């Protein structure tokens, strides 16, 4: 169920990330004030920070889940509460992995480091 993702990892000043030039339809996982995981390849992205790190990153696997799938999975594997806002990003321990979640009205994207993808997939029952 978890598939390899091609993401772009950005580290820059928080202000430059706030105003980064990223296509509007692209999902941006803001993992820290100065860091983001972007669901697009790095050629489409620029930020106003001469010292920014912008690199392609193949180190993540992810899966879209309907809420019918996601709710029982999270109930058994996530000890913290999701934010209510949609769409929004959340991150924390899920199935023992440092997971990034992208929450939409009718579905959820879970992104985990590839080194834990198989074990997370086992917990997803796939």
């Amino acid at each position, binding site marked *: 169920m978890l598939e390899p993702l091609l993401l772009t990892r950005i580290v820059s000043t928080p202000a430059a990330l706030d105003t980064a030039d990223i296509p509007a339809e692209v999902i941006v996982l803001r*993992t820290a*004030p100065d860091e983001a995981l972007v669901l697009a390849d790095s050629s489409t992205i620029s930020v106003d920070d001469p010292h920014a790190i912008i690199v392609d990153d193949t180190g993540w696997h992810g899966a879209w889940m309907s809420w019918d799938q996601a709710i029982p999975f999270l109930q058994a594997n996530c*000890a*913290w*509460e999701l*934010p209510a806002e949609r769409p929004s990003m*959340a*991150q*924390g*321990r899920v199935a023992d992995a440092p997971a990034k979640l992208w929450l939409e009205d009718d579905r959820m994207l879970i992104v985990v480091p590839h080194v834990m993808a198989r074990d997370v997939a086992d917990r997803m029952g796939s």
Partner: protein
Amino acid sequence: MALRIPCPHCGTRAIDEWVYGEIPIVPDAITDADARDVDRAYFHNNAEGVVREAWFHLYGCRRWVTVERDSRTDTFL
């Protein structure tokens, strides 16, 4: 155990997502520079009451956050 630590970036999370980092405090009474170095490097605070400490959110943003904890109740303020 479920100490719950507020992360300004990710929200409140249980302690097992975190790594502790002490913020050393050298008592003002120690004035000699060498003695202050020794105190900072070798002695732990473990004060009773509200203490400032750093926690690294290993399972979330992977950043240090500074929080205040009441060491008598293990609640974060």
